[in-house]
């Protein structure tokens, strides 16, 4: 069997939904993640920094918006956007 035919045969056998090899890609991504998890976890600080800067820092100079403090106003907006 030529290499091309072998390739075709393999692809035909593995092209169905059930014989998917997605788990290999998943495993690969998991291995990459082992090196970068700190980057993703430290992303937790980003909204906190924003909330402190704009909500509490700048918020003092804004006062109230629609009857609530500016910090509550943007915190509400942030969490709604996330959902």
């Amino acid at each position, binding site marked *: 069997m030529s290499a091309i035919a072998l390739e075709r045969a393999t692809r035909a056998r593995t092209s169905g939904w059930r014989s998917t090899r997605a788990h290999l890609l998943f495993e690969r991504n998991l291995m990459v993640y082992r*090196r*970068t998890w*700190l*980057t993703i976890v*430290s*992303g937790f*600080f*980003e909204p906190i*920094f*924003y909330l*402190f*800067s*704009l909500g509490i*820092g*700048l918020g*003092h*100079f*804004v*006062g*109230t*918006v629609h009857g609530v403090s*500016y910090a509550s106003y943007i915190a509400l907006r942030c969490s709604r956007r996330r959902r």
Partner: protein
Amino acid sequence: MTYALRSFEYWAYSYRRVWRGSVVTSIVGPILYLTALGVGLGKLVNRGPGVGVPYLDFVAPGILAATAMQLATFESSYPVMAAIRWTRQFHAMLATPLRSRDLLIGHQLYVAARLAVVSAIYLVVLAGFGALHSPWAILAWPAAVLVGLAHSAPVSAFSAWLQREEGFNGLFRFVVMPMFLFSGTFFPVTRLPHGAREIAYATPLWNGVDLMRHLTLGTASLWPSLAHVAYLLLWVAGGLTLAARTYRRRLVT
């Protein structure tokens, strides 16, 4: 020095192929910022307790300084690591009569040129929004270049020292972003609690923001302005000294 210009030429030459995109972002960027913060949020600030001057006038120089800081930091981060580790451009340059110091100076000259173009565009947009209130505002142009270099010089030292690119995430997340948010760009640092306030005063960004804000508002006085300039120059000199050392250690020995 002529060798440093050769190194500058390399960066300028490769920038000639991608300049269009960056010009568009540097025009659209300030327009969006000034509309959203200066005009939109500014309406709420001016209606509330306020910052003493119209919020648009307050935030405009802050955004200019912060943009100079971000542009300079970025240009001295990944591109430096790329030239050392990925494309190995610096190694190629060192195979010519150029020395590690020429690579450093040439690259910083290129960052300065980028800063000059971007901040000139910003100033024109700021003028269009009516945020400049003094002829002295023209001095905010060289000031923006100085603010940028005060960041790019130490960051280039960091990039040449760094072994893995993941370190840049820490730099951007825990140094650049807090500085962007808390150095008097969006609200006066007097609002910060003690401790944090002193840290903000020590950042080169706050010194740049304060210098440029007084220039654009027309409230600048000689000695405080000179003190800011001297402090920023100190960061440039310190950063370059450190970078010259890390470049040599990383590339030559």
